[in-house]
């Protein structure tokens, strides 16, 4: 096989001592910056990209791979320990991960995230190396109507994050949808709900909403309770390492998460968030201890984290084969390639085979190094929780607001962040789940665009969703998933809850 020979060449490039050092540096600074609350992988990579410009292309790409994976991993650390996801793809990780951390199981949560990310990235990188040219042919066939079908499935699965009351869960989701309307409509250029504020024309940043609702809202809640029932997170209870049971409960979610994450990540408009919702929902359904969901189930960390990382590798498929960046992080990577006058696209594999395989090999190396470096660090990260509460939360607010200013230095953005913090506080106080709002903001515009693009291409004929087999199947799955439980128990559950 020619691919194996090329991959071997790639490895011989990536394992040169100097390149190993670059990989290690990349992983360390990627983790160090990514672990700051409110600073997600995209910003981490954007900030650190210039550092790599000073190296030769090979060394730079290798360091870059390290930064990329390090930033991804650092992002989930803060989501788990501090309930402050720095990006939308780790919102789901925060759901169960933070519950675990609060009950002293932060160590196993971080470990399952790290190993799950490793496993997922390993499998996904292999898939990237050998399936990319094939996958991309399927991926470009995905038309707007197919995306709409996928969005419908994603919407149905969101109900897994609703918590005790469908009414309150739906309200939270609707809030996200409403925020998603804001800004210039991509299809027609019409501004919606901008109230004459130019800063709103680009819509609401998902990161601003996630950081506001989670980080700022969390700080407000903890502060408001501090006097009455002081809540001190327990740094460690029991072993810091994963138990046999943790392993037994984690490995299947890792594999399932990978299987969901990689193909959706490879879609030109798939993204990293949808696989995490789908994975969370599936693990909740399949877990033998589904009652633990909501109070710290390890499957709920293992699956979504694997899905998140697998989709990150998946986004490299359209990036390398089409030159099409499908996430903010990938867009920054594209800029990195262009610095070296390398244009990712259909000819990349032919014209720059050495660089492509060097990148694949360095992704492997970075992945191994991340695991080696970070497993011992888990003990240290968990110690973050031992910082006295006043300084811990003061630090979180400083970093969270800095992350927002760094992405967009405007007072309006800070006001939005604060506003979302207050909303997050009120939602927690009155028992509204927070995650659906973030989900609504992500899915709303995607579904809106997919629906209206489809209808524009079909000249207004709604049958377009049923005429294509792929979208008809997905629409069917979504309707069955929506209607079936509703008929059986949905109505009674709705009433029970309000009684």
């Amino acid at each position, binding site marked *: 096989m020619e691919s194996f020979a090329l991959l071997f060449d790639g490895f011989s490039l990536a394992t040169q001592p100097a390149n190993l050092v670059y990989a290690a540096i990349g992983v360390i600074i990627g983790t160090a910056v990514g672990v700051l609350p409110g600073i997600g992988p995209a910003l981490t990579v954007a900030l650190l990209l210039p550092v790599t410009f000073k190296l030769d292309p090979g060394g730079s790409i290798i360091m870059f791979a390290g930064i990329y994976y390090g930033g991804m991993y650092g992002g989930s650390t803060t989501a788990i320990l501090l309930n402050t996801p720095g990006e939308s793809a780790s919102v789901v990780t925060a759901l169960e991960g933070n519950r675990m951390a609060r009950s002293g199981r932060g160590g196993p949560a971080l470990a399952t995230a790290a190993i799950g990310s490793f496993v997922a990235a390993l499998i996904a990188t292999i898939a990237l190396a050998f399936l990319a040219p094939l996958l991309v042919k399927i991926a470009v066939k995905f038309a707007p109507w197919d995306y709409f079908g996928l969005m419908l499935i994603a919407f149905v699965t969101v109900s897994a994050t609703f918590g005790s009351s469908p009414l309150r869960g739906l309200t939270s989701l609707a809030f996200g949808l409403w925020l998603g309307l804001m800004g210039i409509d*991509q299809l*027609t250029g019409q501004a919606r709900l901008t109230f004459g504020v*130019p800063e709103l024309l680009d819509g609401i940043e998902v990161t601003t909403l996630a950081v506001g609702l989670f980080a700022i809202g969390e700080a407000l809640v903890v502060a408001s309770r501090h006097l009455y029932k002081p809540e001190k997170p327990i740094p460690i209870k029991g072993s810091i390492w994963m138990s046999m049971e943790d392993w037994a409960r984690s490995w299947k979610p890792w594999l399932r998460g990978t299987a969901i994450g990689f193909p959706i990540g490879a879609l030109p*408009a798939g993204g990293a968030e949808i696989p995490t919702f789908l994975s969370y929902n599936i693990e909740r359904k399949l877990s033998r201890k589904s009652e633990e969901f909501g109070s710290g189930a390890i499957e709920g960390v293992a699956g979504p984290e694997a899905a998140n990382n697998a989709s990150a590798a998946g986004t490299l498929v359209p990036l390398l084969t089409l030159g099409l960046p499908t996430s903010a992080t990938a867009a920054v990577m594209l*800029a990195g390639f262009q610095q070296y006058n390398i*244009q990712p696209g259909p*000819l990349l594999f032919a014209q720059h085979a050495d660089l492509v395989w060097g990148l694949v090999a360095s992704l492997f190396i970075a992945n191994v190094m991340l695991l080696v470096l970070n497993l011992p660090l888990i003990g240290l990260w968990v110690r973050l929780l031992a910082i006295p509460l006043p300084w811990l939360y003061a630090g979180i607010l400083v970093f969270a607001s800095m992350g927002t200013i760094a992405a967009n230095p405007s007072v309006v953005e800070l006001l939005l962040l604060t506003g979302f913090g207050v909303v997050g506080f009120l939602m927690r106080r009155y028992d509204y789940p927070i995650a659906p709002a973030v989900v609504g903001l992500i899915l709303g515009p995607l579904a809106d665009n997919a629906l209206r693009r489809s209808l*524009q291409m079909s000249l207004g004929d709604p049958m377009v969703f049923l005429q294509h087999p792929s979208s008809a199947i997905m629409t069917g799955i979504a309707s069955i998933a929506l209607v079936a439980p509703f008929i059986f128990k949905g109505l009674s559950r709705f009433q029970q809850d309000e009684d």
Partner: protein
Amino acid sequence: MRNFFRHGLMAAIIGSSLAAGAISVSAQGLELTITAPAGAGGGWDAASRSLQEVMMATGAAKSVQVVNVPGAGGTVGLAQFVGSAKSSPDQLLVAGITLVGASISNKSPVDLTQVTPLARLTGDPLVIVVPKDSPIQTIDELLKTIKSDVAKAIWVGGSAGGADHILAALVTQAAGEDPSKINYVAYSGGGEALAAMLGGQATAGISGYGEWQGQIESGDLRALAISYPEPIEGIEAKPLKAQGLDIELVNWRGVFAGPGVEGADLEALKASIEKTVTSDRWKELLKARGWTDYYAPSDEFKTFVASETDRVQGILKSIGLAD
């Protein structure tokens, strides 16, 4: 927290050792700030950072800082610039045709005619393509297809009201159809639209040539024409003008100073920019980036901005995006 910072410090040390050597000291004392009215990674950001690099390397300025002010196609950045850079001798703005369109369709109170044009820098051609399996072989056949049923001729391209949309409207008009009837499906940018082209969901697509260059060269897309007025070396597709259509549209970018900058301040900035764009280093950079040189000095650029503003206004009106 202490250990945490040790990592930060380490990053700092590594960063500083790597960053050293890139900066050379110059004789001239200009300390400039360039506003890129877009987020990191886009075309204006890239142009701003390229200017920064070359200005510092050639000694056209002592120090240059780039500030990103993203938002609303650049109108947020422009509004801020108009306010803060008034008569300021050390502030620059990088912008282009997209901002002309965005100011009009967003009904922004500010537009590019309010700032002081310094120089037009680059101008990239747009390209009109069809999928490789399409029966359409030439631009004339595309015009016939549009004429036969304008609604079924599905265009894909970048955001509504942007340069891609404008070109699609011009071509539709040239086919003898009402541009307001155009079926233009807007995507966030050339990348997303590319997937729709490769998937065969559209009749024709428009994007910057560079963005689709790979697919055109590999034969996955068939380029029918470019929108540049003259043929470009290395690009096989012929200009629309050479194929009998009187249409030209260039995705230009330029650099501006604040409102009311005049006299010695303006001359100093003009001289600095001129020194930059005539340097070999700038030419190398354009080549590396795949940008086409479209330099025009201050006065010529000023008339150009005014005429482009009128023209874009007229087209946007015809497609129902401006009143």
